[in-house]
């Protein structure tokens, strides 16, 4: 049965020592966004040692590649070699849909996002989370319809939090 369990994703990534930052809707929700999301997005560090850890975590989560027409997703060789060749990958996991993006639009990837990272304590689990302004920066660059719809909400949220948006 499909689930949506971002905390389980965070638990597994943390247990494997993966360096990553939560991005997208889950990150926005942690900052206080009222917009509902149904999948988890992460930006991992793409250095080789981290890809080994990430691959192990994804295997624990029973990750399959999400693609239209293949119920349950496609099994794949989940190893550091595969991950080193992808820009991003959309996955189905036991914890729900998980999108792994190494260089989110409008950013330079993990090294960029970790600079301003926020950390949230989720009942004992620490979730490294992209800064709200970085989420806004990425969505502004992506400029899809759903980004344009969400940006006013996120900018208002930033304003209420006293953050300066451009």
């Amino acid at each position, binding site marked *: *049965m*499909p689930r*949506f369990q971002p905390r389980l994703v965070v638990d597994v990534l943390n247990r494997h020592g993966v360096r990553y930052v939560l991005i997208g809707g889950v990150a926005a929700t942690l900052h206080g966004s009222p917009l509902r999301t149904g999948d988890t997005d992460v930006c991992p560090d793409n250095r080789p040692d981290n890809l080994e850890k990430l691959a192990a975590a994804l295997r624990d989560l029973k990750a399959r590649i*999400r693609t*239209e*027409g293949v119920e349950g997703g496609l099994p794949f060789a989940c190893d550091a070699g595969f991950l080193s060749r992808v820009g991003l990958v*959309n996955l189905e996991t036991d914890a729900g849909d998980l999108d792994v993006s190494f260089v989110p639009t409008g950013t330079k990837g993990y090294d960029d996002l970790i600079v301003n990272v926020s*950390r949230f304590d989720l009942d004992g689990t620490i979730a490294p989370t992209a800064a709200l302004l970085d989420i806004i920066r990425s969505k502004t660059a992506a*400029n*899809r319809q759903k980004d344009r719809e969400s940006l006013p909400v996120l900018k208002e949220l930033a304003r209420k939090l006293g953050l300066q948006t451009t």
Partner: protein
Amino acid sequence: MGSRSAILERRQGWRYRSDMGTARLSEEHGRQAADVRSSTDGLGRPSDVDALGLTANERSQIAARLRLSPSERLRYLEDMIAFEALARRARRVT
């Protein structure tokens, strides 16, 4: 399942994207999923959007949701609500 995956990967060039970018799985050289590349239009926009502005990934997610039974949809919604409650309890530590 592994052979099914390999067959699909060889026979199809299939594409998928995420919230902040795009990638493509190619069948190049008949190799399995070893040749995924970023694919945007150079402006940070996905190159696989349809006339409605939906990406392949979004279409895939819609199809997956439609396959859910009513009880599964309710469970999914409960998961979302539970995460929102968790987020409200979350304490920012740094």
